[in-house]
């Protein structure tokens, strides 16, 4: 029985390119190597305009969390300029004119040592030097993942689920280079000092499973596990659950349940870094969709503009209406076809108007399909409702922050409700609100402290009368009278202090209200969404549109009835 999780949905696979042998495309005339291709700080450029760089040469280095970037061609650095990345963000990029010589950097050389002789720290260092990041999409630096997992995990999982429709890059990798994946896995096991690893493959890749099993045999260091073909089987939480039965809550790292997960392509890249000394400068990209002449799997140098890859695949068939970087369930629609392929780009999908069509009218009929399919066991229908009515409190109560935005709910919704889009927008607002609330809390605490200090000052200043008890008389009555007077004075002082505190509190409240108002206004400003989806179709002209990054995150605003 293939392993799986509760929820999810068997999305139509569209794996048309599963039989397409990978083809290496010639390096383009110009590559755009972004300095930010990973989670963390962007790399700092180490080359200058006019420098000649070689294939595999380091172009940028990072200090904190991040990974260095390398040139995928040899040639002259033409420019260092801002480019739009496939995910819509901007990054400085080293633009290199390819001289076509493909001259390798001298640093590129096989390690030439037995794995057993390489200590764990050195493995991590080599992986870091090779600029390897997670190639499944999130692009978390692999060396950082290794360091943080060191000593905390007992299960290493290689994620070959590839549950996104259309994409077959990992499938082809497993079929054509199963040994790379296996050897990469062994290197990672050695780095972590583990004795056992799992390669997890969805059962729609039967051929790959057979190949891996034949190579691995029984009872070895690494075992192959078959997963049910179901979306989102490749999400790390669902993967961990299917393999180990442990539930990893949203927002937590796999190491908290003793697991560490690497993508199949990442393990192969690790192997390449050891066997050839070659850093991560190319990757397999699936090119598919009804608007491409020759769909297939292409080995693309990092930094190649998407349009060059599409042209290598025979160019567009008909007029493309939507181009997606990554899978159709969680990938990003791009507006600039010149965006370069980065380390995390697994696919380019070109859709015609037919596939890009979105319904403008929708209504939830409460069928409950989204509840059954939600891999996080939430109630998407209610979340979308609360999100649409801007009821952030209810959103939070119904666990909106646990949503992983896999999109299964939107995919299956018969009422065509853009559920995850609503949730995503509201989730962002909940997070903002939380941040703002925290800031307000701090501000309030500060003001309160000030008020208390002020009140104490006043209180200290007034009890003078106590001392002013006339010393000349020793009669008890008079003393009592004086005491009474002193008490009254003290009371007065106290009242004054209280008044001062009250005033201060009032002021604080007003300041808070004011800031809340401002925030609301700001939120409203930001919440201005395109009238409906069709306007956003027109807006992002690839050339003229320069700052459309934020639009991505917003839900279509077609009004709820």
């Amino acid at each position: 029985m293939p392993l799986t999780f509760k929820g999810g949905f068997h999305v139509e696979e569209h794996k048309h390119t599963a039989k397409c042998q990978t083809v290496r495309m010639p390096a383009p005339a110009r590559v755009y190597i972004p300095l930010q291709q990973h989670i963390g700080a962007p790399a700092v450029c180490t080359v200058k305009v006019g420098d000649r760089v070689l294939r595999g040469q380091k172009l940028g280095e990072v200090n904190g969390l991040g990974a260095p970037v390398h040139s995928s061609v040899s040639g002259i650095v033409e420019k260092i300029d801002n480019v739009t990345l496939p995910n819509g963000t901007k990054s400085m990029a080293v633009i290199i004119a390819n001289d076509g010589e493909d001259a390798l950097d001298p640093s590129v050389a096989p390690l030439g040592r037995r794995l057993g002789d390489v200590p764990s720290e050195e493995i991590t260092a080599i992986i870091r030097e090779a600029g390897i990041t997670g190639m499944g999409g999130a692009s978390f630096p692999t060396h950082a993942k290794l360091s943080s997992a060191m000593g905390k995990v007992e299960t290493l999982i290689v994620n070959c689920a590839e549950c996104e429709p259309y994409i077959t890059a990992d499938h082809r990798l497993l079929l054509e280079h199963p040994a790379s994946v296996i050897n990469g896995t062994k290197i990672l096991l050695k780095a972590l000092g583990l004795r056992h690893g799992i390669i997890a493959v969805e059962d729609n890749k039967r051929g790959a499973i057979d190949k891996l099993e034949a190579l691995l045999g029984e009872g070895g260091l690494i075992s192959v596990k078959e997963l049910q073909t179901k979306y989102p089987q490749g999400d790390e939480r669902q993967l961990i659950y299917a393999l180990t039965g442990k539930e990893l809550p949203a927002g937590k790292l796999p190491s908290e349940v003793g697991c560490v997960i690497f993508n199949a392509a990442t393990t192969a890249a690790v192997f390449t870094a050891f066997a050839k000394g070659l850093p991560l400068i190319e990757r397999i990209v699936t090119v598919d969709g009804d608007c491409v002449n020759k769909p297939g799997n292409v080995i693309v140098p990092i930094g190649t503009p998407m349009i060059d890859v599409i042209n290598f695949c025979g160019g567009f068939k008909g007029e493309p209406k939507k181009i997606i970087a990554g899978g159709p369930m969680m990938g990003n629609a791009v507006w600039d076809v010149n965006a370069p392929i980065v380390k995390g780009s697994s696919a380019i999908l070109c859709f015609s108007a037919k596939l890009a069509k979105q319904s403008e009218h929708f209504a939830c009929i409460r069928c409950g399909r989204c509840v059954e399919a939600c891999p996080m066991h939430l109630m998407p229908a209610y979340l979308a409702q609360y999100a649409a009515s801007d009821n952030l409190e209810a959103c939070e109560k119904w666990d909106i922050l646990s949503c992983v935005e896999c999109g299964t709910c939107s995919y299956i919704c018969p009422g065509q409700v853009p559920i995850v889009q609503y949730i995503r927008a509201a989730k962002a607002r909940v997070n903002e609100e939380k941040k703002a609330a925290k800031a307000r809390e701090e501000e309030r605490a500060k003001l309160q402290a000030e008020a208390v200090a002020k009140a104490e000052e006043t209180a200290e200043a007034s009890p003078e009368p106590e001392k002013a008890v006339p010393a000349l008389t020793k009669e008890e009555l008079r003393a009592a009278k004086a005491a009474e007077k002193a008490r009254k004075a003290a009371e007065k002082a106290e009242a004054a202090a209280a008044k001062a505190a009250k005033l201060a509190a009032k002021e604080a409240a007003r300041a808070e209200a004011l800031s809340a108002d401002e925030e609301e206004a700001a939120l409203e400003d930001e919440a201005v969404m395109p009238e409906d989806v069709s306007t956003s179709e027109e807006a992002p002209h690839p050339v003229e549109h320069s700052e459309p990054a934020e639009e991505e995150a917003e839900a279509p605003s077609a009004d709820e009835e």
Partner: protein
Amino acid sequence: MNQNTTIEGGSGLPPLLTVSPSPHIKGTDSTRGIMLDVVIALLPPLVFACYIFGMRALTVTLVSVAACLLSEGLFNLILKRHQSIGDLSAVVTGMLLAYNLPVSVPLWMPVLGALFAIVVVKGLFGGIGKNVVNPALAARVFLFMSFPDLMSRYVPPGSAIGAFESVSDADILAGATPLAQLKQGTMPDIPLMDLIIGSCPGTIGEVSSLLLIAGFIYLMVRKVITWHIPIAYVGSVALICYLLPSSSAFIPHEFMLSQIFSGGLLLAAIFMATDYVTSPITRTGRIIFGIGCGIITVFIRYFGGYNEGASFAILIMNLLVRYIDNFTKPVKFGGLKKQA
């Protein structure tokens, strides 16, 4: 920017691309498809009704469906709402409304019922997905309260009333319906087999238990509904009737079977209680909902002023749906801290 390549397009300019948040693909399920499946599942009982009561059954149904479509269309037009009649939900409402009427009703009654269902119960609450109670059921109860006599004029099976023939008092069944007899503490004169096949007096759609069950199986196979509500509903009715018959004179299993196959229980449990909009969206919630419907139905049949309790039971439970959903909210993934 980096305009090193151009795309071959009509004008030589790069194409205008749609940018939208993921997901970029859509499943094939649609409201219209689901409603079409329900309509298909509802057709056999109609054919049977035409056979057992005459073609007037079809006339009443068609009038009801047409009135529903028309009122929804006009309502949307007047309120300048998106025209939603294409989703076929009004057709389902129309059919269910007609199925809850005796074949003898004057034709203005389905029209009035349709207006009430579509405009008052559904439209004024915001249209499809927003209504609190089942439109067809609410309309049935509305008609039942307003015209109790007209709503209780049943004809005996085999009446063969023509499509446009009005029903005279001579055609009307003089005796009590099976449910009325059960209420009076006697077993129905109609044999159980006839109740199951549908050779008995009743409303247009409720008589053929066999075909209703066939519809249930069809909807299950097509994954339109889950088993939870119908099984929990009918199951709880069966259990109560078997364990606590209304009179000790009854033989428990016979009494139980007559209760299940008389009246509108199956129509209600399979087609009305399972209405998505007015039933819970969690599986556990659906079981609770079904059991609630079952208990109230039996209560009304035993102790209420009416012979049939299914409509009221479902309407009452409809009102509790949001609470049931709230109560049965699933534990989020990772919420249990299950650490093996």
